[in-house]
């Protein structure tokens, strides 16, 4: 994995993904080590994403790395019209690894092709956000004891939600049964279903959240955005039908856990937060360990 950019989750094999998860466990036990002291990580956030940036920077900081970069493009040469090509070629001179978030889709792939140092894609528009997928896998593995043979329900906007697409594709390596809950307008796209079919795995589609609760091991919730609907009345009609409340939890399995890429709006009622089955805040914290594992493997430290 040394020196190998991570742009899409598929860039890494199943074995490489599992190696990252395994190493993340070590970092979870011992997150503060001075093993990146000789390294400079460039953190280039062309659009603000405080959550992701803090997770990466905290991961690097705890390992002693120096961080250079920017948290939004407004005060930089980018705003003055510098091309992405020039920014990457310049920054690659000053760093050992570039973490980049950019609203332009495909920008991370492009950067990985011109950069002399590896690129970690921290989100390129609606396209890919592979470290989110890794932390989702880690969270599932940690709460379920294994990634194999699970019943995973994905709920909400399955059409446009990039985290859902990447997670489905990644879980196809682990004999998952998929339960897909969405309004008819926001069903999982054909191109993503193709991955499930290629592996001969089962998927079931639902429009009611209640239907999947008793059978699921993991409930992965996402936000439904108003902008996705051409008919605002349709949005009003369905917006409250995919909300999880604490009183819906008693019928779920013992190992059942609720996950969410965050930020949430109202799709998980705050009454769920104190349930031991709510996992979304720990899930976010797992991002730090997974990113530590990823960076040290790419740099060849581990």
């Amino acid at each position, binding site marked *: 994995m040394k020196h190998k950019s991570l742009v899409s989750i598929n860039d890494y094999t199943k074995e490489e993904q599992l190696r990252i998860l395994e190493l993340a466990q070590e970092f979870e036990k011992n997150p503060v080590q001075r093993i990146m002291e000789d390294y400079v990580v460039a953190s280039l956030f062309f659009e603000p994403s405080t959550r992701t940036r803090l997770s990466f920077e905290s991961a690097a900081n705890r390992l002693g790395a120096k961080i250079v970069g920017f948290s939004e493009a407004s005060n930089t040469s980018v705003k003055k019209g510098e*091309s992405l090509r020039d920014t990457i070629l310049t920054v690659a001179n000053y760093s050992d690894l570039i973490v980049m978030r950019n609203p332009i*889709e*495909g920008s991370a*792939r492009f950067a990985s092709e011109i950069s002399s140092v590896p690129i970690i894609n921290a989100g390129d528009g609606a*396209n*890919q956000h592979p470290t989110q997928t890794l932390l989702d896998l880690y969270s599932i593995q940690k709460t379920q004891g294994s990634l194999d043979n699970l019943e995973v329900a994905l709920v909400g906007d399955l059409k446009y939600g990039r985290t859902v697409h990447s997670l489905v594709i990644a879980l196809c390596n682990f004999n998952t049964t998929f339960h897909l809950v969405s309004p008819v307008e926001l069903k999982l796209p054909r191109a993503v279903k193709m991955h499930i079919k290629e592996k001969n795995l089962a998927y079931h589609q639902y429009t009611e959240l209640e239907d999947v609760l008793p059978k699921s091991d993991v409930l992965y919730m996402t936000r439904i955005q108003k902008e996705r609907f051409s008919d605002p009345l349709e949005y009003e009609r369905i917006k409250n039908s995919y909300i999880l409340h604490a009183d819906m939890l008693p019928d779920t399995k013992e190992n059942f856990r609720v996950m969410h890429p965050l930020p949430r709006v109202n799709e998980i009622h705050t009454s769920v937060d104190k349930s031991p089955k709510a996992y979304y805040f720990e899930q976010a914290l797992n991002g730090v360990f997974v990113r530590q594992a990823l960076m040290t493997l790419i740099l060849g430290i581990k």
Partner: protein
Amino acid sequence: MNNKKVKELKVSAIENGTVIDHIPAQAMFHVIRILNLENFENMVMFATNLESKKYGTKGIIKVSNKYFAPEELNKIALVAPHASIIEIRDFQVARKTVVEIPDKINDIVKCFNPNCVTNHEDVRAHFTVTDKEEIRLKCHYCEKITSKNTMEFR
């Protein structure tokens, strides 16, 4: 005068070169662009809106003293999937082939996604063909699918 003779009058025979037949009339311009015939120095003859039993109307292009590599000709399959290629040597048909949609498309198509890096930076889109029947092209960069009705040529 029957149809056949009329056709022969419109597009006369070539001694050596390539005839591209069964081009949909509306795709003529694209074929010329894709094969870069605008900048071609040898004699090139075009005819369009010819009657075709199979396709209604069709176009035909004759390029003298030029034989194309299959990879080059296969690019036109995107707009002229039923085109047939006839190599003429000494006024005789030396070889007849049909075009085939290639597995990869480079350079000639623009990514339809306005938010794709190829529409912002100095880098050209290239694609994997994910569906040869309906023609669906997956962009190497943004991973979005450009389809027949969103396809634009550069």
